[in-house]
């Protein structure tokens, strides 16, 4: 019988025992309660995490690449409760640097850590990088002091403090062009969206597509985070300098004339590009929460497209264009103004209730004779007249690429609210309501000398996936012929020159028309207050701009010729410099060289 305890066997028993112990320990680890917890902990630490990656919101530029809306780096400041060592230090530093209430911060920092329920509290958000650097420096200081200190109880510590960086929408130009840009309610973080203007109209394009990914926490299983492209950036047709100039002048005009509001639009009539659109009031979109204080009593965000009004005599441009194009009249057609005309059971009078005697069509426009234009409309007949108005887009949306466009439906013969007298009143811009942008689009067909009406637009290009896509101009109709446009432009240039209008700008031949619209109210028309407008364009032989001015309810005077026309002139005087447009004579000389 072999010996049981030889030296070799003892070693064998020893190793067998060790193996059994290892096996036992493995089974114990797998089944132990603490082992279960450890397993869960590993799963939590090295499991997967679902992340939603929000792309950077696209930028908005003006036509020359100046940033109008971008993003800046800000931080969320939070406290991990299980890491906090000294709530007092945290509260003291945070309240000092971030200008927060000490008590509130202390309360948050001193909260009990409850795993899975209460582990992290947000102290502040949208904190600037400078403030975060300040906090980081303080944190480092305390950590350095800690290594030197002997008694750990008295050591100051900011442990537990966490910074999470993210982007915040910012508008570097502050209130400039805010009525065009709209705003982005960035404080709502995941529920943020664009409101008004371009921010709302192109929200989806700017926002891009958020991507949800499942990431393993185990670094050995780590995969590359997909590259989420930023939202599309937009290049607008707006010229920042022209916009700033227009806003400055319209603000001054509103103030000087005691007007309720002011609107000015500058458009290139040859392609529909909006160069500037200034309205009052405006807000700083960086402080969008002030919206309610700025836009009180249902004030529209952008009157240029969201408020309809009876434009008055600027509408005569459309009536005369229709009459000339249809052959109803020629510039030489004579009309004897007796001071009134009877249409549909009502007498129509001129603005001054006077009789202006024999007038050609240029005279009718120059003196803005309601009686003459009413007669023209009756000569055209309702069918032809309203067909032209519809061709000019009256009563229809321009589809300008801004959120919130409003229209007032055009009453047509046969409608309940249409009466025969409407034919006369509509001819001089009463009883018909439009937005300034509708008027701009309609009159652009005359102003560009082509008879072609271009869709007004603000988007010049968009940048997607690193490529710039330019948007071509869109012609939306040709309500009149080119000859009609040239003829009427010349008539309106002569008309301005003949009356030595304050709208004139030395060196530049301009065409234009004033407008004074009475304001309808529940009991008829208001007697004291008016809407004063002016539309003008130039240079007449090579049009580069169309300017529309509307001052609502001015108290300085009630006439477009004295209130709105000087504003037009002020704008054009600076506009020609900003557009590098030499005076006509100089231009002709330079062209001839």
């Amino acid at each position, binding site marked *: 019988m072999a010996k049981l305890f030889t030296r070799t066997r003892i070693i064998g028993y020893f190793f067998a025992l060790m193996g059994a112990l290892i096996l036992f320990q493995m089974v114990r680890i797998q089944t132990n309660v603490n082992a279960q917890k450890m397993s869960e902990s590993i799963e939590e630490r090295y499991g997967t995490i679902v992340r939603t990656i929000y792309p950077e919101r696209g930028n908005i530029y003006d036509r020359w690449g100046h940033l109008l809306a971008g993003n800046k780096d800000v931080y969320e400041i939070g406290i991990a409760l299980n890491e906090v060592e000294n709530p007092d230090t945290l509260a003291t530093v945070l309240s000092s640097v971030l200008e927060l209430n000490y008590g509130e911060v202390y309360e948050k920092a001193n909260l009990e850590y409850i795993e899975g329920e209460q582990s992290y509290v947000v102290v502040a958000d949208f904190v600037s990088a400078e403030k975060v650097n300040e906090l980081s420096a303080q944190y480092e200081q305390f950590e350095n002091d800690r290594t030197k200190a002997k008694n750990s109880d008295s050591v100051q510590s900011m442990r537990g403090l966490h910074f999470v960086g993210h982007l915040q929408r910012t508008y570097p*130009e502050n209130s400039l062009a805010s009525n065009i840009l709209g705003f982005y309610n960035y404080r709502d973080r995941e529920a943020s969206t664009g409101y008004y203007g371009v921010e709302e109209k192109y929200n989806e394009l700017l926002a891009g597509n958020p991507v949800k990914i499942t990431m393993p926490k185990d670094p050995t299983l780590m995969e590359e985070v997909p590259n989420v492209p930023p939202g599309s950036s937009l290049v607008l047709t707006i010229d920042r300098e022209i916009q700033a100039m227009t806003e400055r002048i319209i603000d001054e005009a509103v103030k000087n004339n005691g007007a309720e509001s002011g609107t000015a639009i500058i458009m290139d009539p040859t392609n529909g590009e909006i160069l500037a659109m200034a309205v009052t009031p405006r807000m700083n979109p960086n402080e969008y929460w002030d919206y309610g204080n700025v836009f009180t009593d249902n004030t529209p965000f952008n009157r240029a497209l969201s408020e309809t009004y009876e434009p008055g005599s600027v509408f005569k441009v459309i009536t005369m264009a229709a009459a000339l194009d249809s052959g109803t009249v020629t510039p030489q057609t004579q009309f004897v103004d007796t001071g009134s005309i009877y249409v549909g059971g009502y007498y129509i009078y001129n603005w001054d209730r006077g009789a202006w005697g024999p007038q050609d069509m240029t005279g009718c426009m120059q003196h803005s004779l309601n009686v003459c234009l009413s007669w023209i409309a009756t000569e055209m007949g309702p069918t032809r007249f309203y067909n032209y108005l519809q061709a000019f887009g009256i009563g229809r949306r321009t589809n300008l690429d801004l959120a919130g466009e409003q229209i007032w439906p055009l009453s047509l013969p046969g409608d309940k609210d249409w009466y025969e007298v409407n034919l006369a009143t509509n001819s001089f811009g009463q009883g018909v309501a439009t937005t300034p942008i509708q008027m701009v689009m309609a009159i652009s067909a005359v102003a560009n000398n082509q008879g072609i009406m271009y869709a007004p637009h603000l988007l010049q290009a968009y940048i997607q996936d690193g490529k710039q*896509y330019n948007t071509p101009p869109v012609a939306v109709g040709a309500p009149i012929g080119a000859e009609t446009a040239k003829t009427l432009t010349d008539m309106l240039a002569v008309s301005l020159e003949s009356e030595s209008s304050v709208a004139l700008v030395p060196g530049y031949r301009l065409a234009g028309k004033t407008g004074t619209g009475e304001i309808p109210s529940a009991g008829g028309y208001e007697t004291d207050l008016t809407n004063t407008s002016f539309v003008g364009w130039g240079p007449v032989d090579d049009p580069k701009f169309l300017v529309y001015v509307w001052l609502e309810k001015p108290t300085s005077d009630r006439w477009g010729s004295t209130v709105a026309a000087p504003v037009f002139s002020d704008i054009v005087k600076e506009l020609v410099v900003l557009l590098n447009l030499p005076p006509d004579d100089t231009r002709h000389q*330079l062209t001839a060289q």
Partner: protein
Amino acid sequence: MNHLFTQAYQQAPWRLQIQRIGGFLVALVAVVIVAGVYLFISAQTATAGLEIQTLERERESLNRTIADRRAKLAELTSAGVMSQRAADLGFIRPDMSTAIYMVIPGYQGRQPVMIAPPPSSDNLPSPIIKQSYRQSLWEWFFEGVLGSGNGGY
């Protein structure tokens, strides 16, 4: 006889024992090598994974910084700030009566901004694999070592 014949060619028992031990050790060494390589690769993978995490955080941070700098630059050059700076430096707003116009041969005027290339432009193919990985030994010897070429690292 057969038994005797077999016996004549049988290995000595101690040799068989050595062979078995040797085989076991070879297998053990192979297992240890495989385990070692596995551990080494795992460690490298984990390091690379952590590095990816770090780089991704850095990329996010850099993207935010770029956006932030762009916004700051825009603030510093905004219309209001520039106007104020110009006024402080003694410049005055140009007036139409003082403007002088002249023809500059070849000047096309201010051109519309192109923030990104047009869609028709294709990216030029850029070498993804370094030249050194595409060189033959022959090319490497003559171009890289003897310096007859431009190297290509």
